[in-house]
């Protein structure tokens, strides 16, 4: 367990010292969201109608943007090979890296979202569910993303490839995330949507590290 904590701390420290990651993700989230009113027009009713979708889609793209760096730096400087010799199983290491990745991307995204929702005139009923759905959904994005990041290690055109691999797999999270917010605005129960988001997370939690570790092993072969 202490090895797990050390790994999380190491990744967090690296992310914070290098500075760029969390700021870049949140920056992209803010900029992309702000572009929408210019694209679709400033009518409050229209913005309120599509706010949930805009926020979730841009948050998803922002999370996608940071995925490439999940294993890339460690793979290039060889520390991934050193890490794979640790007694801690590779699956647990993937989990630690996902946790660190979520802390510097998913968490700040969830924290920024209400502010942007204000700009997009999101209905007052939706704020709590917006944060809740992002908190439940973004860990799943990090976990599934780890599989893609591990698979595309050392590939040509890694970034575009990663988006192509990940977008189909992200669709369920997007559907239930937006569904929860729209249900709360419409006055319906949000329980089913949030439970399904939780189910996706509960499924991804054991399965994604397994697949990602298998992918890392064959990248290290």
């Amino acid at each position, binding site marked *: 367990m202490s090895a797990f904590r050390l790994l999380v701390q190491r990744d967090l420290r690296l992310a914070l010292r290098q500075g760029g990651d969390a700021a870049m993700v949140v920056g992209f989230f803010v900029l992309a969201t702000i572009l929408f009113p210019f694209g679709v027009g400033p009518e409050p009713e229209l913005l309120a109608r599509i706010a949930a979708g805009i926020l979730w889609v841009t948050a998803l793209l922002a999370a996608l943007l940071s995925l490439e760096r999940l294993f890339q730096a460690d793979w290039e400087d060889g520390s991934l090979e050193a890490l794979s010799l640790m007694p801690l199983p590779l699956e647990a290491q993937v989990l630690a890296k996902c946790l660190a990745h979520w802390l510097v991307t998913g968490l700040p995204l969830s924290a920024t979202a209400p502010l942007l929702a204000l700009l997009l005139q999101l209905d007052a009923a939706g704020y709590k569910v917006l944060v809740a759905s992002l908190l439940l959904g973004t860990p799943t994005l990090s976990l599934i993303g780890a*599989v893609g990041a591990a*698979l595309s290690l050392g590939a040509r*055109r*890694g970034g575009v490839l990663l988006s192509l*691999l990940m977008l189909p*797999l992200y669709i*369920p999270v997007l559907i239930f995330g937006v569904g929860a917010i729209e249900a709360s605005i419409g006055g319906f129960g949000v329980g089913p949507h949030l439970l399904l988001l939780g189910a996706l997370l509960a499924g991804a939690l054991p399965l994604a590290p397994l697949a990602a570790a298998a992918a890392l092993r*064959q990248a290290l072969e």
Partner: protein
Amino acid sequence: MNLHRFANPARFMRLSSALLPWCGAGAAALIGIGLYLALFIAPPDYQQGEAVRIMFVHVPAAWMASLVYALMALASAIALIWRHPLADIAALSAAPLGAGFTLLCLVTGSLWGERMWGTWWVWDARLTSVLVLFFLYLGYLALVNAFDEPGRGARAGAILALVGIVNLPIIKFSVDWWNTLHQPASVFRLGGPTIDASMLWPLAIMVLGFMLFFATLLLVRMRTTLIEAKIRVLLLSEIERHAAASPRQAVAS
């Protein structure tokens, strides 16, 4: 189960060269008969009119699209677990064919939608699922071809195919949840099919024809891959032989 009996490429080449003409002739005959029945014999639908004939290509293509993905995932699992060399080749050879069937399904569906719904594209549940499946195929193909070392691409693709097959039901379910206005499935359901025998027969023949067509192309593609590998080995040994005979010349060239 002794899979390694079939792992021998030489045995596969013998077996496939015997099977290939039968598969090819069967596919041509069945698709020919099926198309004739579908286009000339089957009656027009009382609601859909002549446009229903698109369904005789659309439905088999849709079934093949998911069937090929399942086969690809199965071959990938065999390749990962038993390191079966032919399974890798089978998965790699099946992927472009599956993507082709998926594209055919999307195009024919779009043509049918234009006649029936008055629009080329509707974001309904089944269309959207097939579109997502198409992107899964494209992702697989992009990943497999993204590495300089071919073995690496095959192994990465195998893992991706398994991740995809686990996710497909979830995607299907979520997309169904998201939206549906498509007509419910009408061939396979409890209480027998709801389509008339005059239309069911051409459809069944077309499905069989598509399967044999796929088998034929798959065998051809697998054989080509094996032959390519053999040619590469022969060329390399030729170069080595030349290099051994006249070392200086080989270095100069």
